[in-house]
């Protein structure tokens, strides 16, 4: 496992963002170590504005660590992260959130002590101005802002994700699939410019997965939000993503359009070891044909 040179732009396969537009997110040469453990090594890729980009890879490939670097929870030792042309690698997580980076979490990170509505409202936090004094008297700005965001959330997020019936319920009482949806709602309330989804359909049944796929596509199309997601469900990845980045052992081993990536021998090896390559290919191509 030697370090791989970071791919240069001209190596970029077809389907990668065009060089003309500033990428929504540009990750270059990112390396993350915990002591002697190399989690990410020289990871580079771009996310084109308005696209859905999927990061895939076997368990332990470093996908969630990559997300944690982008949202600022981990500090990578090397490399740069640029969001819409601005280097954000040194910013604190809240500053990144203010610039329009929103995410969901692999193990749903809702706030158990709050209702669905309050969880979603929390997403608007960075865009509100209410200060401590306003809040204590709840008069003027605090009251106005609260009612404004309530209206906005009701109309744009709650209706959109069909959460009307549970808005006043505590999140602890919700079923798994609904919680995932509330988490998406909270991320959407941040009015993200880049929405990062960490395994949005993990553990969901077929029907819930299809609903979620619909929501993700709607977010992209109706809101024009750029989406970066980690996902294991290859069906979902093949169906909705424009661009796929494959990680294995903390390195990018392939990038490109979904169809190209699935034909990449290295990717197939990474997923199946020395297993039945033909069967996987047939399955994926069968899906593509459908």
């Amino acid at each position: 496992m030697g370090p791989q040179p970071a791919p240069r732009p001209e190596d970029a396969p077809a389907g990668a963002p065009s060089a003309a537009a500033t990428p929504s997110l540009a990750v270059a040469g990112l390396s993350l170590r915990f002591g002697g453990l190399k989690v990410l090594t020289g990871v580079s890729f771009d996310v084109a504005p308005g696209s859905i980009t999927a990061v895939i890879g076997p368990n332990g490939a470093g996908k969630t660590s990559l997300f944690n670097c982008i949202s600022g929870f981990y500090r990578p030792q090397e490399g740069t992260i640029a969001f819409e042309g601005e280097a954000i690698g040194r910013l604190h997580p809240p500053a990144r959130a203010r610039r329009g980076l929103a995410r969901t979490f692999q193990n749903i990170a809702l706030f158990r002590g709050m209702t669905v509505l309050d969880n979603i409202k929390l997403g608007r936090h960075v865009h509100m101005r209410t200060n401590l004094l306003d809040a204590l008297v709840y008069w003027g700005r605090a009251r106005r802002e609260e009612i404004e965001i309530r209206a906005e959330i009701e109309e744009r997020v709650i209706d959109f994700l069909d959460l009307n019936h549970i808005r006043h319920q505590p999140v602890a009482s919700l079923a798994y699939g609904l919680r995932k949806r509330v988490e998406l709602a909270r991320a959407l309330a941040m009015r993200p410019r880049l929405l990062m989804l960490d395994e949005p359909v993990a553990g969901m049944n077929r029907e819930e997965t299809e609903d979620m796929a619909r929501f993700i596509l709607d977010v992209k199309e109706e809101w024009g939000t750029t989406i970066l997601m980690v996902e294991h469900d290859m069906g979902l990845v093949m169906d909705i993503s424009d661009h796929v980045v494959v990680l294995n052992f903390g390195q990018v081993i392939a990038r490109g359009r979904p169809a190209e990536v699935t034909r990449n021998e290295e990717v197939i090896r990474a997923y199946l070891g020395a297993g039945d390559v033909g069967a996987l290919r047939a399955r994926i191509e069968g899906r593509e044909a459908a």
Partner: protein
Amino acid sequence: MRIGALKTSYAADHALFDTPVQRAWLGLGAALLLAFPFVADDYWLYLACLVAIHVIATTGLNILTGFTGLVSLGHAAFMGVGAYTAALMEIRLGAPFLLNLLGGGLMAAGVGVLVGLPSLRVKGLYLAIATIAASFILHFVFQNWSTVTGGIAGLSVPPARILGIELARPAALYWVILPLAGLSVLAAANLFRTRIGRAFIAIRDRDISAEILGIPLLRYKLMSFGLSAFYAGLAGGLFAYFFRSITPESFPLVYSIFFLAAVIVGGMGTILGGILGAAFMTMVPEVLKLGVGLASPWLPNAVAILSPVRTVVFGLLIIGFLIFEPHGLAEIWRRIRRFFHLWPFRT
């Protein structure tokens, strides 16, 4: 039985008291509190004032511990800072009563923020231990900075005056302390309708994801510390005017544990809990005193064991509520209300 309440605007849905029935109860409660001084004797007025002071302090600790998830064992010491500040402003500067209360609150808030500073590096339990340290260091300051604090003898405080009227007795102070307690509770309730309160709860529930959602942890933790200490300082100022004498021993570690117990017994993370907990915990010693009075003919040293019995009961209440009813009296109250909402169809 209640069926439901129809709301036609978001503002109505955001109101603190959202049904006519609730507002009626609230009105009734206010009327009772207004009438109280005219029917109660001095002992009951004294108790009412003490409960109100404790409600302010407990609500403050609840903001920090119940809502933000940071345990503090320095609450009584913060209260002491407020008490000494208000007393000194009164004695040295002759500043007006209400301004002194504000000064006490602000000074305590400043000290609170200072004590919260280790949260830059540590969290949770380590922070709780830092507040114990702060509590002892403040006690040391009260005791040894004699030129200012009067040392072990402490300070005696002249009676409060508003517009030339002297408020020396509980019956008079009642008209200041109770409205202040009401305002403090209202302000705390307001806080948790806004982004700031939500940020506190988010920090309590999952601090790391709160940060990634855009909440600067340090700033909000310090804000919570400061606000909580402000409440303590305000309560401390009232304490100084109420008892008219303060010494370092007025604010021992046990008093901090008293407030922690009040928060736990009342219900962590509920506004109602702060009120119920403070009232309950203030009444416990009184009930014990009553019990001792009844037992004294048979138990000659009953009076002597009053204080240790109180200590034991406080501890037992903390343990018992944490094990058996972690949501406190507020949850019991909620269950009772629910029972009547559904009555007679489900019991």
